């Protein structure tokens, strides 16, 4: 039984650690599928994290905090959209600037809250259902945003693969001129995709500051935004592979801590490197078919569209 509990713990911890990555990466995936490369994920996550924390501390309402974080991420991405889509600024440079800008803005929003924490209720979960053996903790004891992330994963997959609007989005990302000639509004689609990316990054940030730790400190995302971007690329712009990558990264992170605790004598510096190395190696290997990758790479990624 002790072993079973242990594996359940690892599974639950993995799902939880993967949640912010999954949220941010799904948003970035939709944005990139529409042809817009937004490197500002880290900045948008930070703004979501500090806004969410400030609202949670002020209103005591977690739902309101998440909504505010989503709105904050979306607003910041709108700024990115205006610069890169309307003004046709370079997407890479603007994205990097957005991360720096977002880091500063988040510090400003959170300045009154540095080092403070939200009160924690007991363990997360749905009453009664979470007490079912094995299945209970795995299915019903997760944080609300983890369920939300999986819902969004299913939604994004269905949207891209099965819906007409998703087809439009992919058309805009692959051949904006052709889409435009067909009467599609390229800029509007890209604006919406970029805003979705910002909203999801904001939610990912709020997960860290409002549910996971729950504290606000500057730069608390600690590079998770960049990992999300890397996941999208290495996952070949496929939502299911993004999930796989996020779980792999979260899982290896949790397991390497366990290995340290058990003390197998492996240097901790090597273990700390493992989540990054393992995720990259595995995703590169499963995505090594160049022709198939070419098919799913948004053909106009990073290229501004001029009407």
């Amino acid at each position: 039984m002790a072993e079973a509990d242990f594996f359940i713990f690892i599974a639950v911890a993995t799902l939880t650690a993967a949640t912010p990555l999954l949220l941010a990466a799904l948003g970035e995936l939709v944005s990139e599928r529409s042809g817009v490369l937004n490197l500002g994920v880290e900045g948008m996550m930070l703004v979501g994290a500090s806004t969410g924390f400030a609202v949670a501390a002020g209103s005591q309402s977690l739902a309101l905090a998440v909504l505010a974080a989503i709105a904050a991420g979306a607003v910041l991405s709108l700024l990115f959209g205006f610069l890169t889509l309307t003004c046709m600024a370079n997407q890479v440079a603007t994205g990097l600037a957005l991360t720096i800008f977002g880091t500063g803005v988040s510090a400003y929003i959170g300045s009154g809250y540095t080092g403070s924490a939200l009160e924690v209720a007991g363990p997360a979960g749905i009453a009664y259902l979470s007490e079912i053996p094995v299945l209970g903790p795995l299915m019903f004891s997760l944080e609300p945003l983890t369920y939300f992330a999986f819902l969004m994963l299913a939604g994004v997959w269905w949207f891209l693969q099965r819906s007409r609007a998703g087809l439009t989005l992919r058309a805009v990302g692959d051949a904006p001129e052709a889409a435009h000639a067909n009467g599609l509004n390229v800029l509007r689609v890209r604006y919406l995709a970029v805003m979705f990316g910002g909203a999801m990054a904001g939610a990912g940030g709020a997960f860290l500051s409002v549910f996971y730790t729950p504290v606000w400190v500057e730069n608390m995302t600690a590079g998770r935004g960049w990992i999300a971007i890397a996941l999208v690329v290495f996952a070949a712009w496929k939502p299911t592979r993004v999930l796989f990558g996020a779980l792999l990264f979260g899982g290896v992170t949790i397991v390497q801590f366990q290995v340290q605790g058990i003390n197998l004598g492996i240097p901790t510096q090597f273990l700390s490197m493992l989540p990054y190395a393992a995720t990259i190696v595995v995703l590169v290997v499963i995505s090594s078919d160049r022709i198939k990758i070419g098919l799913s790479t948004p053909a106009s990624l990073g290229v501004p569209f001029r009407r």
Partner: protein
Amino acid sequence: MIRILMRCVMALVVAVAVMGTHSANAGDPLGVGFVYFSPVGDTGWTAEHDKGRLEMEAALGAKVKAKIVENVAYGPDALRVIRQLAADGHKLIYTTSFGFMDQTLEVAGLYPDIKFMHLDGYKSAENMGTYSLRYYEPSYLAGMVAGATTKSDTIGYVSSFPLPAVLQIINGFALGAQAMNPDVKIKVIEVNSWYDPGREREATDALFAQGVDIVAHVTDSSAPTLSAQRTGKLVIGFHSDRSKFGPDSQLTAVIPVWGEFYTRVTKTVLDGSWTNAPIWDPMSAGVLAIAPIGKMVPEDIAAKVMKRQAEITAGTFHPFQGPIKDQAGTVRVKDGETIPDADLYSMNWYVQGVEATLPE
């Protein structure tokens, strides 16, 4: 146009002259600069330094005028900030992070009449001293509390980096725990950061999942405390009394008392007795403490801890008092001896009972 320009220049010259004489006046307050690497905030490293700064100002009143610069990045930014504080007439500058060492040294070379105090470093100059606290002393006491409380005989430690300063703290803790309960083992997880609440939580949860019932940490966020509070486990706080975040979980916490320190050292600059001799302050100087012991700890245990605290401050007990063996069983401190400071300073081993591997 030229006349306006001339006027501006004149005004500037006068202003500078006035400022120059201003800072030279003998009756003026001593300008004291503080350089922080992070924002002040509510709890943690910089918050404690700033609490100390405020206490120092309250104690010395009109004799000092302090200025803080927070969130200073290491490297060129730090150099600019320290130089600016010096140029603005501050006569004593505290740089409160190891990462400011080289920049502090560089500016100290430029301003020989200004005193510099750098935290936790190993470089000094005629007008630049270093200061550190013997955290292992309160850590030993916290270890006693944890060792007497644990039911699993295993305590977890969320560590940052395997530096001598960190190893002193973990070893001191382990020795304190073993003094109350010889069977205690310590599991260590390093998060390779001073400050990453996400990883601190993951490491804390991992330790709890491996069956420890108490986690201590050498990192700076409240994430371990919150994690313990969430799961109904126990925690030893670090840097700040975090009991408001873990009212049911914090056994005690290891905390610096910077007010005492900054008041004393600033006074030495005021009365001219300042020297650059390295300061490594023990608890007896009033600069370290443990937070009030939690109500879940039986009173007789708390009393034992307080008794030991009195012995440490009286100098009749040293946490690293032999016999002490390392993990391999080699005797590091012989029976009847205490560890020399030089060995503490270069500590690169864990005591017996710590289950962790150090890099070669």
